[in-house]
């Protein structure tokens, strides 16, 4: 390990400092989008009608899928701490599969909505719906890629010197999860 990797003036691992700053810069992206949605919605009417066409039960199921994936992500991190490589691999794989399930259900939802004529151009609610869930889905996809990279490294047994990355990937994954916790009620329950 070179000097630069071990160096930390504050005692906080450098990767973690970087990850927190990255997440701090991600919050305003969704914050701006959510604030825009709230402000525009408060300033005009007729949004509940549009919102009632969403598939609530699928989204509820999807919420459980994503929450469960956060659980498996935490279990993966716990497996790193307990030095159990098999359990780490299993939990990373589960997280990855749950993420893919989320995207598949989301895609199924999109297909149904577009089939009923609710395209992104169908009105301002649909603009926000596709904009917010689409940006979130891209973040889920990003997290899946990160987890895939970690899983491949874990299977090849090259993850050992970089095991702290599981924790960092977890921070990101939970952030994406939390964003959904905001999007779900704002879009589906109002």
């Amino acid at each position, binding site marked *: 390990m070179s*000097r*630069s990797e071990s*160096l*930390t*003036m*504050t005692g*906080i691992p*450098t990767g973690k*400092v*970087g990850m927190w*700053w*990255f997440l*701090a*810069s*991600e*919050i*305003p*992206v*969704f*914050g*701006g*989008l959510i*604030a*825009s949605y709230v*402000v*525009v919605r408060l*300033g*005009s009417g007729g949004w509940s009608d549009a919102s009632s066409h969403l598939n609530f039960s699928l989204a509820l199921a999807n919420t459980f899928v994503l929450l469960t994936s956060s659980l498996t992500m935490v279990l993966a991190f716990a497996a790193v701490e307990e030095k159990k490589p098999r359990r780490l691999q299993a939990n990373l794989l589960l997280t990855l599969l749950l993420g893919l399930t989320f995207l598949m259900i989301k895609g199924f939802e999109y297909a149904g909505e577009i089939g009923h004529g609710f*395209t*992104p*151009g169908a*009105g*301002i*609610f*649909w*603009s*926000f719906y*596709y*904009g917010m869930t689409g*940006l979130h889905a891209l973040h889920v996809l990003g997290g899946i890629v990160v987890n895939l990279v970690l899983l491949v490294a874990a299977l090849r047994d090259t993850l050992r010197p970089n095991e702290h990355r599981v924790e960092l990937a977890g921070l990101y994954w939970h952030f994406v999860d939390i964003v959904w916790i905001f999007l779900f009620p704002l879009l589906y329950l109002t």
Partner: protein
Amino acid sequence: MNIFSTDHKVIAKQYLSVGLFWAIMGGLTAYMIRWQLAYPDTEVPGWGFVAPDFYNMLVTMHGTIMVFFVAMPILLAAFGNFLIPLMIGAQDMAFPRLNRLSFWVFALASVILLVSFFVPGGAASAGWTGYPPLSAKAEYTGVHWGLNLWLLALALEFASFLMGGVNFLTTAINFRAPGMTFFRLPLVVWMQLTAAVLFMLSVGPLIAGAVMLLMDRVIGTTFFLPEGGGQPLLWQHLFWFFGHPEVYVILLPGLGLVLEILPVFSRKPIFGYRAIIYSTIVAGMLSFVVWAHHQFLSGMDPRLVMPFSITTILISVPFALIVFAMIATLWRGSISFSTPMLFALGTLSIFILGGLTGIFNGSAPVDIYLHDTYFIVAHFHYTLFSATFFAGFAGLYFWFPKMFGRMMSETLGKIHFWLTFIFFNAVFLPMHFVGLGGMMRRIANPMQYAFLQHLQPMNIFITVAAILLLLSQIPFVINFFWSLRAGKRAERNPWQANTLEWTALSPPLHDNFERVPVVYRSPYEYSSPESPEDWLPQDRPPAVAQS
């Protein structure tokens, strides 16, 4: 030199080169804009006829280029990358490969912006602020892919600077040398860090906004289109929520460079080191609540006008404090007017004028008259030209020996300064009066309006001065390239300065320092009775420890 290097010094030079390339493009667009305004509908020498559509493209791209592709890469990315690790005593950035990625994403954004000039329909022409509905539908401007590519280039640039910001902050938090406490950091590092925080916390909503605008243009959403229930005004809020902190993202690193140079050439400690830091932080926080002063006439709720006027006037207080600290640093110092010092003083004097006109614009009753006139154009050139070019040149003349290992010519430098200083004022001082006379920004032909025709001699004067201002950069270009090859070899510490980068070789080794520096003191201990010389490097142990 390996262009895929992860060395922060190489990456800094790469940002500098790309920034200087775009500065030439920005200058050329300015030349064509000015010619059209002085001699409307005549052929621009060396180019040809400028049609109104093309003129709209010129003003759009001039703003975009100068703010996002000149000021940010030079002030933040180049100087931040070069100085932060050297000044805090680190061997490189915290994430060198992320640093390389951030440069190459920026390079990709540059290529995309360059390509946008050549696609059918031409480059973006909805103003550098890209207000919808004008920007939201291709048929409104006649520009289709040009504007999409413009949005893509901006989004990539933001991503690049977000990576850079994460790197700057993490480096300064964790990679400081032993003894380098936060209150021993040179002020430019503080300013860079504040700028990074401002950028990271303000750009998010605009990234969201850029995605929304791109969706409006490409897949038919209606975020900003009233016919689909959208709100054009929403874009203005998203843009300026970023856009106002953004001016401090540019200004603070520029002021930071000046703050490093003033004590060195006054041989005096900086006046009010902590007060400057606190002012910077206060200004940073206030910068998040001033954005709607760009929108007094936008049709937003008029009840918002007074609060935003008040916060805008308030934000001049911390900046006034910084300016007073600068002047107090000079007070009774033994000042030597070297080229970096001249440019630093130029920044200070010009920025004061730009700051003062800012108070006019921030006061809603005055702004209602001044809004969107050349008074505004004059104001933001006095602030941003001083931060970008005067402070940028000051920094370049000052750190050139450390970057390239050679000294620049003082004679050419002084010629460059005086020509630039004189012609800058000759261009932008009269613009205030043109603006007060009612000339609107972004009009392609002032002669079309009877009430503006008597201003035409002044417009011609400005254009002549602007061409001379551009030509005044020739001594710099000659100096830069000549000094790279044939300048006098620079020693470690040619200016007898205190900060850590001057203890490294010129240019520094790949890992910067021969051994890890240990810091014992604050960065501005000039003319201290503790030392026989008039400077005291940060890594010199206290005399007590030696006895």
